[in-house]
């Protein structure tokens, strides 16, 4: 954990696995962002990851934003912002 910013708050979330080298981890992080945004689109939300700031930044259309450490926190924050859980099996996500 960085003693200045407190990130990451806990060791390795499971969705951060899969990259053996720093470059690979960054590449996976950026590919992941596209997948996250495909799911968030139907809820009017978007995520941003500049590859430098730890965690992901989540934006709502009204201007609300939140910095989240991992995908669990992201989905929880997105559910709060959207007023409904981001459910990949829901009609909203599938037909939106």
């Amino acid at each position: 954990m960085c003693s200045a910013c407190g990130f990451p708050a806990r060791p390795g979330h499971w969705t951060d696995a899969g990259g053996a080298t720093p470059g690979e981890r960054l590449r996976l992080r950026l590919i992941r962002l596209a997948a996250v945004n495909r799911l968030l689109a139907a809820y009017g939300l978007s995520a941003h990851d500049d590859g430098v700031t730890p965690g992901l930044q989540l934006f709502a259309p009204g201007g609300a934003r939140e910095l989240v450490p991992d995908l669990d926190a992201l989905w929880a924050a997105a559910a709060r912002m959207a007023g409904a859980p981001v459910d990949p099996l829901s009609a909203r996500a599938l037909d939106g």
Partner: protein
Amino acid sequence: MAEGRLGLVILGGFLGAGKSTWLRHQLHEGRFARHHILVNEAAGTPVDNLLLGGAARLTVLAGGCACCEGLPALIAALRDICDAASGREAGQIDGVVLETSGLADPGAIAAALAADQVLARRLRVTEVLVLADALHSAAQLAAEPLARAQAEAADRLIVTKPAGLPAAELARLVATLHRLNPGAGIEGAEQGVPVALPAPGAPYDLPALTGAAPIRPHRLRVGAEGGWVALSVWLSALLSARGEDVVRVKGVVRSPAGRLLLQSVRRVVQPPEILPEGEGPTPEEGVIVLIGRNIDEELLARSWARFGA
């Protein structure tokens, strides 16, 4: 009296209770060294056998829970083991350990084996061990008829992962298990290593059960290459939204770092284990098994096609 019959230990417990982990440690300690290990998995993709590399003799029955549709396969496998143990190879094994699927009622399996005319003369059930996950057991016992049936069928109940629960709640769980099955001994084990449990507290009041939707296994082909990122995103969203319904997920997925063994119990996903290449049995890659209720298979495939592929 054994009367030349092989002893059978039935190892049961709800999905994700830690059956394979417990058994792996027993094998490591040299217990069941001369036993034939028989592993049953409800879904058609065996994963647990990867955890049990230490077994001298191992048979995996995948694709059907042995207490219902997989029963004929179980009976055939047990007959084969009995035949092998009585011919030239007599005396080579001391018994059989059956690790049931998490969907199985060990009581129903024991009853079915006793009803089989051949096996009734060749096998005797020496012990029914049922594992109960300290973190999830209270909720499972409250909501799942199967979890109660499993606890009720046990000769010995083993509370797994007790370190994750405060002692007061653990004491209540022990009391609840004791009330469900007063005849069974109750022990604790962390990763298969015995640990002491607190004295029983006040038992939880278990509600009468109404017909909850049954738990079914679903297979999802996620692709062998490059699917890991999309899968982790999609699955983390799914578990966040439907963690109550998706009881268990397991599978082996290819990532840039190697093959990852993925496992979850409800919302708790274990840190993916990297499987060494070329060691042990080759797992089916790129297929994950989702076990849960209220899941529409067609919707699952559509959702994966849209967000995963």
